[in-house]
């Protein structure tokens, strides 16, 4: 096997650490102790909370995302491009900032209803993006064919359009579900208990106790259930597009008199998901005046955050290169297995990854505990799948003939990878780094648990201040996080449009 293959295997084995940790803990604790800790009413309550949250939020997100995507992509809705942008923009507002905006607007907000409301507003773009781009790629010839067979527009939508959006909907729904399981800040703010909030609480009170580890085990089980559910519903069906005929530009559906009511949906969503954070942040900035801009502290936090974000992004992208290369150039059983490993780990909540790394470093490699290396490793594990996606796409576009030519000129495979493939895939690598750094920029849970003493990232500072009900003091940090996230969100938006061929 080549060096590249070996590197990919090593990365995949390392990425299995958190999962291995959970299994190891479960085995070590033993069934008797574990069952006592798992089967108690507190865990039952958490399970009900988490399940209700997922079961309510995901369907609402699906309906909302499909409706918005259809309005912006397939109708003559005035300002469709603007509404499309506004439907993606909430990605730039970290979920806990969204929660902070709502709780400071309506201090009484709490419980399941509030959790669902804020989760929908924070996460529906994860569904909107794939659904909108699937709608753009859909062959309008199919809809013409269905109409010629006597199907009214709503029947065409139900029997032809919707079934073909299935994969996009499933993928997006999985992403939203996993985020709901992993989210910490959003739910603590509105005093809604989920597994993740409970694990962090346990960790903070008992540090590395078996109780936290057992909860983490249940959380991992929930993630795996979601993954299997999605895999099962996805099935083996391939929706290959048949034929390649001249793509007809779809004729937009005329809304006519329904235009005004249809405009209300994107407008209301934009007000709730963007207007509320904007108004709240502006209010706190005005109320706080110049006092809240403590530039020394803010600058320090920004600097630390940038170091972690860029370092983590570079590390994750570097680790993703062998994997991405293999998945394009040497697809096969081994590659699918390795990719599966990365995928599962990438779907584990940050709190589980952090818990695993804390335990492993404390017990096995104490000098690494709370070091820069450990936190960067945690980021790399958490965000490896993100890095893989764009890298893989751009390596696929680098012609294999160039690699062969370079090889025939006497370069070793590793040097070819570096001097030819990666040069050509540089835009993809940059996009990978951007995506990963966006994730790290707003990461709270793992950073809190793993970062070296004295670290205070923007998210941590924001969290500490808002925890002390110093909402005004927290506002500048939130504003900086949003402003830094905006360009990356824009990149995501542009990329999704380009991948659809327009």
């Amino acid at each position: 096997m080549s060096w590249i293959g070996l590197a990919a295997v090593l990365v995949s084995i390392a990425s299995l650490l958190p999962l291995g940790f959970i299994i190891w803990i479960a085995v070590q604790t033993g069934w008797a102790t574990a069952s006592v800790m798992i089967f108690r009413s507190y865990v039952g309550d958490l399970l009900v909370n988490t399940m209700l949250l997922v079961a309510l939020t995901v369907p609402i997100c699906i309906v909302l995302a499909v409706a918005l995507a259809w309005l912006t992509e397939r109708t003559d809705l005035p300002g469709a491009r603007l509404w499309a942008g506004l439907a993606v923009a909430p990605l730039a507002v970290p979920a806990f900032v969204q929660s902070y905006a709502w709780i400071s607007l309506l201090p009484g907000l709490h419980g399941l209803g509030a959790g669902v409301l804020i989760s929908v507003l924070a996460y529906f773009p994860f569904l909107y993006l794939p659904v909108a781009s699937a709608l753009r790629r859909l062959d309008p010839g199919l809809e013409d064919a269905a109409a010629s067979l006597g199907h009214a527009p709503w029947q065409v939508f139900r029997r032809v359009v919707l079934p073909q959006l299935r994969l996009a909907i499933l993928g997006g729904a999985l992403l939203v579900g996993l985020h709901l399981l992993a989210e910490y800040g959003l739910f603590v703010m509105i005093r809604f208990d989920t597994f993740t909030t409970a694990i962090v609480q346990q960790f903070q009170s008992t540090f590395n106790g078996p109780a936290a580890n057992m909860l983490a085990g249940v959380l991992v089980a929930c993630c795996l259930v979601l993954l299997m559910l999605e895999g099962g519903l996805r099935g083996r069906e391939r929706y290959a597009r048949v034929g390649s005929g001249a793509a007809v530009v779809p004729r937009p559906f005329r809304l006519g008199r329904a235009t005004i009511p249809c405009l209300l949906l994107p407008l209301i969503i934009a007000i709730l998901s963007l207007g509320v954070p904007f108004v709240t942040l502006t209010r706190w900035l005005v109320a706080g005046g110049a006092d809240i801009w403590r530039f020394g502290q803010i600058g320090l936090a920004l600097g630390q955050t940038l170091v972690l974000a860029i370092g983590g992004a570079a590390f994750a992208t570097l680790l993703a290169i062998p994997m991405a290369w293999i998945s394009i150039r040497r697809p096969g059983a081994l590659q699918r297995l390795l990719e599966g490993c990365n995928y599962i780990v990438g779907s584990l909540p940050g709190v589980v990854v952090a818990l695993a790394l804390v335990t492993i470093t404390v017990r096995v490699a104490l000098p690494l505990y709370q070091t820069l290396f450990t936190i960067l490793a945690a980021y790399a594990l958490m965000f490896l799948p993100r890095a893989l996606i764009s890298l893989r796409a751009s390596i696929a576009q680098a012609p294999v003939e160039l690699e062969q030519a370079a090889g025939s000129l006497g370069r070793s495979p590793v040097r070819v990878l570096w001097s030819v493939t990666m040069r050509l895939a540089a835009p993809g690598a940059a996009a990978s780094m951007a995506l990963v750094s966006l994730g790290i920029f707003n990461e709270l849970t793992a950073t809190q648990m793993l970062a070296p003493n004295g670290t205070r990232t923007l998210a941590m500072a924001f969290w500490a201040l808002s925890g002390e009900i110093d909402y005004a003091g927290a506002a500048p940090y939130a504003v900086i996080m949003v402003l830094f996230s905006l360009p990356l969100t824009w990149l995501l938006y542009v990329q999704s449009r380009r991948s659809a061929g327009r």
Partner: protein
Amino acid sequence: MSFLTIESVCKNYGATAALTDVSLAVERGSRTAVIGPSGSGKTTLLRIIAGSETPDSGRLVLDGEVLADGAAFVPAWRRGIGIVAQDGALFPHLNIADNIGFGLPRHDAGRTARIHDLMTMVELDASLLQRRPDQLSGGQQQRVALARALAPGPRLMLLDEPFSALDTALRVSTRKAVASLLGAAGITTILVTHDQTEALSFADQVAVMRQGRLLQTGLPRDLYLHPVDAMVAEFLGDAIILSAEIKDGWALCALGHIAVEQGGRQGAARIMLRPEQIGLVPVVEGGPGKIFGKVVETDFGGSLCTAVVEVAGAGLLLTLRRPPMETPPAGTAVEITVTGTAHVLGETSPRRP
């Protein structure tokens, strides 16, 4: 009255005119081919008939029912018009049986039997029914698309270059099968294509389009032998177009005196000959009243070879395609003969000297 009447239909996309004043009548049970180069507006015309597009102005009447008249418009799904698209447009999420049954009522007792009948009709094996569209070959996909369009019993069938994605041998056999099937079912059909052989052999009526206008409509043979202008002539096959002086049923041109149809114009005009009217007879020396030439170049191409013949004293080069045994080698002196009459072209679009 005709089964389908298209009256003065116009369609613009922004500043570009896709269709200008197109009128066409289609008889019940007939087969019409609309032919034109790409961008000539033929697909737009088809989409307007199907109801996927609305005309800016003009009328569309099918079997006495007004489908479109200015702003009034019957939507595609109420028209009962079947389409077979270029790529088949099969639903990728449904198997073959569900694709064919898509336009049939879902809880109808005879549904399965009808699907099987249709499979037999398009000569496909029933074992394919559970397959997915992407597991079928291009020709099979087109047959499924045809069966699907036939299922609800359409009043009119539209074929949008349905054979162009197939390879040559398959194209001919599929075209024949489709033509005889639609003929047997008595379904009025409109075929859009850019392939002249396909149009001429498939249709009872051929309509030639260019730049959004209908240039000429008629029987395939009439169009081939009596095109209105050089463009139509060249679009439907190889043509030799010459300047001539017409007098009393004879045209005097570079190829000598050639008979023309009676009752035509007199004086200067342009005439058209099809290359198959030209004969080449190798000779040793010339004689009076005959036209001679010399083969300057030949190109062997199997069943059809190309010969370039220089007409003596006229500075005219004729490019002729003919069987190999009738193609004299380069350098041969030949007598040039013409069989049949020449066709006098109309005065429109004089493009060549």
